[in-house]
């Protein structure tokens, strides 16, 4: 004989499962739709999708998105290296000297930078970099991306470093390590998984950023460019432009580009899971 309590319990579990499915349904739907459409494009275009140039609006060939891929890679690398370096140093600084006025300032700056809309950042960089340089460039794009990624990366690293229990720092001091030694040989190694995750997540953020590049990168997709001072393109920009266009061939390219981006994100996700052995406290 089922008691009312048992029925309530089962009902509750059903509701939870339903709501959970409802929550992940959009993502699953997204992945499925993008994969189906995108993979079809890969198949149709072959490897030239990654090496070729984008098609003209009325062409029959899919072509490729090489300039966008190179542009994204270039800007990601530049931006990521600057961001990670600055963010890690800032995080170390504020963790080691929390009451210092510089640390307080950094915290405040990070919070305020994070609240600037990305499109506004794009316009600021336009004024500060594009205009003096008299043209769009991958560099300008990287600067914009860095400004956006910095507070995010700093906050994440800061949280990671702060979550290392203080007892290990004291242990480091007790074996006569200098302050710097304690950071390099104890704090960072213990937090390494968190730091690696932070790097990858920052990279994912940078790769998918669109608004920041609107007035900075240049959308130059006629040829592959490795130069930071020349205008460049990025995959999200391409998707943005092509989806809004009336041309069907460009829509197809956009699907392919979206699928490529999604693939990259999935790869990062798995990398995060597998990379770097976790330090068990």
């Amino acid at each position, binding site marked *: 004989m089922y008691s009312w309590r048992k029925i309530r319990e089962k009902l509750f579990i059903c509701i939870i499962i339903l709501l959970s499915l409802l929550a992940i349904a959009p993502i699953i739907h997204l992945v499925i739709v993008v994969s189906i459409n995108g993979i079809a494009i890969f198949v149709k275009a072959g490897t030239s999708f990654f090496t070729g140039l984008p098609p003209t609006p009325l062409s029959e060939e899919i072509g490729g998105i090489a300039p966008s891929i190179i542009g994204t890679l270039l800007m990601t690398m530049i931006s990521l290296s600057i961001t990670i370096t600055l963010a890690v140093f800032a995080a170390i600084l504020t963790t080691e000297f929390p009451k210092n006025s510089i640390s307080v300032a950094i915290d405040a700056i990070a919070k305020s930078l994070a609240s600037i809309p990305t499109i506004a950042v794009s316009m600021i960089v336009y004024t500060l970099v594009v205009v003096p340089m008299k043209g769009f460039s991958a560099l300008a794009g990287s600067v914009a991306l860095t400004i956006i990624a910095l507070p995010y990366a700093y906050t994440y690293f800061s949280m990671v470093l702060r979550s290392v229990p203080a007892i*290990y720092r*004291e*242990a480091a001091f007790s074996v006569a390590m*200098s*302050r710097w030694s304690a950071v390099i040989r104890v704090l960072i190694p213990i937090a390494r998984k968190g730091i690696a995750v932070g790097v990858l997540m920052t990279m994912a953020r940078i790769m998918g950023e669109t608004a920041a590049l609107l007035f900075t990168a240049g959308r130059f997709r006629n040829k592959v460019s490795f130069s930071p001072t020349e205008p460049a393109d990025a995959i999200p920009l391409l998707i943005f432009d092509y989806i809004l266009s009336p041309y069907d061939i460009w829509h197809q390219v956009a699907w392919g580009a979206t699928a490529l981006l999604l693939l990259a994100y999935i790869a990062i996700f798995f990398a995060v899971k597998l990379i770097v052995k976790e330090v068990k406290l």
Partner: protein
Amino acid sequence: MFAVEMNNVNVYLGDRQILKEVTLKVHYNTVFVIMGPSGSGKTTLLRVINRLIDTTEGARVVGSIRVLGFDVMNYDPYELRKHIGMVFQVPNPFPHLTIYENVAIAAKINGVVKNKKELNDVVRWALEKAMLWDEVKDRLHEYPHQLSGGQRQRLCLARALAMKPKLLLLDEPTANIDPVNARKLENAIVSLKDEVTVVMVTHSPYQAARVADYVAVLYDGMVVEQGSAQQLFLRPSTDIAQKLLRGEM
């Protein structure tokens, strides 16, 4: 000369005074136990000795402290700590290093060894002194999280010993471990007397009775009574000490 000599030491944390006119002397190669109820300032006293008090926000130290002949407040704390080992209340072996590396890093940093062979010898010696060698000799490449709490604490002791310190500070080292391991640790501590001077903090009068040569009773930041262990455990002269021995505090 004394291993540790404190004269009229006062420690303030913000507005609060944690230690009041503390005066004590620790002889070389003895086990000196600081006993007292919770909140009496025992841990603070210990942390003043190796300047770990510096890491506490708003801490101010006034008074004369000489450790191993150095004037502690006017000496480079990082240099000072090369001669002082410490074991904390909560076992804190480095989780990212193997058992071997945990002990080795202490020896390497302090330039105690010149080559790999000497390093192996020191690691073994330290683990033997901490009475842990037999339990880990086949597992030196494993990580501390695979050890029990008591084993971890002995690993911390081995790490502290690998520095070949002259002074060993122990902050309630058996507070968080089981009784069997606690006894092992106590036996290890007593056997170390020949090589180091030990200053240990405990709130258990029985533990103090088991290991101490000299005892100082700390109450509300003041040294209420000080003397040889025998004298204190048989004929304490203050009421506070007697209450502490009875476990009423």
